[in-house]
């Protein structure tokens, strides 16, 4: 074995030793806190052909409201207050219903609550019934949705 080969072999060995000596474990940590984000989009109500019901369910231009839920940690609870109608009609019955991947509620004029998934899209319909019809003007059904831990 000539001197050049010996020198090359020793250098290679040193390189291997150096490589194993510098091995390290890299750790990337993450912490998930219990957080909730709500993104609502309003809907549109339309009076039906009988003139006694205004709803998001049917009619040209009718559209439900939606509520996007993005939560981390534990699945949160959504609490809906009783729907409130503003507008010229008096004595009307105001109700909402909602559906999501885990939160479901039929039409009700009372407050309600439901557990939701960490990621969910809740569709919210409104229905206003007035036997005396709807005078012209602007109407709005509002409900306050609270994301929290039950």
């Amino acid at each position, binding site marked *: 074995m000539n001197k050049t080969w010996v020198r090359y072999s020793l250098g290679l060995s040193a390189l291997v030793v150096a490589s194993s000596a510098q091995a390290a474990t890299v750790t990337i940590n993450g912490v998930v806190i219990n*957080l909730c*984000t*709500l*993104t*609502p989009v309003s809907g549109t109500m339309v009076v039906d052909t009988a003139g006694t019901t*205004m709803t998001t369910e049917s009619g040209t231009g009718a559209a439900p*409201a939606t509520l996007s839920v993005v939560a981390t*940690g534990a699945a949160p609870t959504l609490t809906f207050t009783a729907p409130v109608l503003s507008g010229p009609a008096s004595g009307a019955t105001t109700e909402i219903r909602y559906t999501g991947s885990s939160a479901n509620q039929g039409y009700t004029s009372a407050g309600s609550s439901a557990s939701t998934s960490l990621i969910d899209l809740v569709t919210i319909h409104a229905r206003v019934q007035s036997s005396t019809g709807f005078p012209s003007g602007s109407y709005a*059904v509002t409900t306050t949705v609270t994301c*929290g831990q039950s």
Partner: protein
Amino acid sequence: MMRLIAMAACAALAVPAFAVGMGPLEKEGLTDGPAKGFYLTVVNPFEDVETFRLYPAVIGGEDPVPDVRIHPERFRLAAGRQRRVLVVAQNLEPGETRVFRVCAEKNEQEGMIHARVCSKLTASRIAGQ
């Protein structure tokens, strides 16, 4: 004719989405003094700057809670940003446990859905101090 009535009675037209986020949704703390502080993080995932307000309320109701300070109570937050808010429960008596919630919402609500996020906070002061 009915179409005209329908158009006239059209309620809240679709409005651009806004969002509010806050966490943690639940927090407990023990102190040996009369005050206990909590940090909450408010998030604006909306694509525009928004003004948010925070306020304390009793659990299961809307009544205000005395002796709770929030710093700041109202602030503007750029799109996609978050900030910490300090909540301080004050005048805790020895052995007292005070449970309340702090809610965050857009300063001026609009549209059919008024969205808010509430954190349940529990501040306890050890007895005999």
